[in-house]
């Protein structure tokens, strides 16, 4: 029920190719996250799946049926937008029920469906209000409720948390994860935030410049990145890249995550100078400058006292080290 398949999908605006051939299968009930830097085409791809942009080439299949020329409303999907996009002239209840009303569902059924969705999202006290009377977090919950009411085959989320403040973002993220567990629906979620991708996804699709760089579960991407781009994009703080040749490896680059570098005042592989220290309480980030490799990040758990311009020695955990060829591909 609701598996999505993309076959060689392309999109061009005039002469610019935005999506350069994407093949992807999203399984039933899967939470799939499209992640990538801004301008990588992830939102465009989502809008193509929704039918809001037409497809230049390739096929979009929902449930095995070709959807390229089907109107958005007939694709049996629901979308949650970054800017909430609630209808300003309608109450929360009417906002949530509009799609069903358009589809000709009876009043009693609409009422039942909106009530059920409202109960799931704790929106009952707000049902008769208008969007202008709601806070940002409430608006996004209504937008999510509007999607749930339709019981779609596919949920599409377009950066739904970007307009919320940090605390609300975490709360809403948990809410979306809970929702996915309860509804067991197929969801596609677009974000540029790798933390959201890691925490929510069953499978992450990393996009760059209109192409899929790698598809895999969060831990696959973390432990087994296909190239320097994925390695750098997944994981926070970013992975350190070192010049391989100067360390006696074949030319290219060596990748090591900040948590897999150890630091010592006495001895180690690389002698470096501390240039900045960030203390977060639970962890400490030490930025050390090395003459050959530039700025390296070390992530330590707990509190540590390192002073700026102190000399330290860094050691790489060899088994957690990645080797990349000069083109950036994993060796």
């Amino acid at each position, binding site marked *: 029920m609701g598996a999505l398949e993309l076959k060689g999908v392309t999109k061009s605006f005039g002469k610019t190719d935005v999506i350069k051939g994407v093949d992807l299968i999203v399984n039933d009930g899967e939470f799939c996250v499209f992640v990538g830097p801004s301008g990588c085409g992830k939102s465009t791809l989502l809008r193509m799946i929704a*039918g*809001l942009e037409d497809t230049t080439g390739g096929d979009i299949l929902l449930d095995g049926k070709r959807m390229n020329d089907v109107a*958005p409303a007939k694709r049996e999907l629901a979308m949650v*937008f970054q*800017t*909430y*996009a609630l209808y300003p002239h309608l109450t929360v209840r009417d906002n949530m029920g509009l799609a069903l009303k*358009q589809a000709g569902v009876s009043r009693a059924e609409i009422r039942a469906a909106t009530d059920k969705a409202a109960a799931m999202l704790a929106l009952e006290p707000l049902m008769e209000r208008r969007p202008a009377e709601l806070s940002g977090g409430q608006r996004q919950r209504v937008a999510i409720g*509007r999607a749930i009411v339709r019981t779609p085959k596919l949920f599409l989320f377009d950066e739904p948390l970007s307009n919320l403040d940090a605390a609300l973002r975490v709360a809403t993220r948990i809410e979306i994860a809970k929702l996915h567990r309860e509804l067991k629906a197929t969801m596609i979620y677009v974000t540029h935030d790798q933390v959201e991708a890691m925490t929510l996804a069953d499978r992450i699709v990393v996009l760059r410049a209109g192409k899929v760089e790698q598809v895999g579960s969060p831990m696959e991407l973390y432990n087994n990145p296909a190239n320097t781009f994925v390695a750098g994009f997944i994981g926070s703080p970013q992975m350190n890249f070192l010049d391989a040749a100067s360390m006696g490896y074949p030319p290219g680059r060596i990748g090591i995550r900040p948590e897999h570098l150890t630091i010592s005042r006495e001895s180690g592989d690389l002698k470096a100078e501390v240039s900045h220290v960030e203390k977060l309480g639970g962890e400490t980030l030490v930025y050390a400058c090395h003459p050959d490799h530039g700025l390296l990040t070390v992530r330590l758990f707990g509190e540590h006292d390192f002073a700026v311009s102190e000399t330290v020695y860094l050691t790489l955990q060899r088994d957690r080290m990645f080797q990349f060829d000069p083109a950036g591909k994993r060796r």
Partner: protein
Amino acid sequence: MSARTSLGRTIAAHAVLLTYTLIALFPVFVIVINSFKSRKAIFADPLALPMPANFDLVGYQTVLKQGDFLLYFQNSLIVTVASLFFVLLFGAMAAFALSEYRFKGNTLMGLYLALGIMIPIRLGTVAILEIMVATGLVNTLTALILVYTAQGLPLAIFILSEFMKSVSKDLKDAGRIDGLSEYRIFFTLVLPLVRPAMATVAVFTMIPIWNDLWFPLILAPAEQTKTVTLGAQVFIGQFVTNWNAVLAALSLAIVPVLVLYLIFSRQLIRGITAGAVK
């Protein structure tokens, strides 16, 4: 800088604005007061207020007796309201199409329509007259409505398409996913959001149409299609001008347009200050 220290500036600003208001309102004021005075009193002391001594309604009596001024008013209202309706409807629809849809020649079409702002429609008077004669529309209100609609569209499209671009794309897309037709999206989602801009366009379109003398004189000078502005001209003669009647007719002509303006003005103020105050 607190609000208190800028008090002087506030007073200065208000003084400038009040002066401007006085200058702008003065001619209107003179017209209205003199319309209530006798002919002799108008010339003796044009700035005197209407007093029992010089009070005279002869102007209004002439206007209401001579000619069919009620009909002229009706004609003016029909032409103005109908043209306004069509300008807003077609202007908003064209603006929506230009700002929302990507199609070949989109920019060119926008430029072509904007050209109308720069080229006055009166340059085409002869051709327009020829067309109206050929189609048998001379001396009909339809002719005026058509011309005024054409005259108002360029500016309407130009202003409205800018505003339509600012309407959230997500909102329109949400409507599409929920199964609203493009017409429903346009009428129920987009139009209410650009209402202030519509009011602005309405006022800018309405006033020149109401005041126009040119096209009524050329296209519809017949008795049954005269507008107020044209009707008032009967009192202006080559040798003798019935000032009482002219002033009375002009005073009366202010009323309907003032009413329309008041209807739109609340929205207009929101349109002009949109963005200024969040």
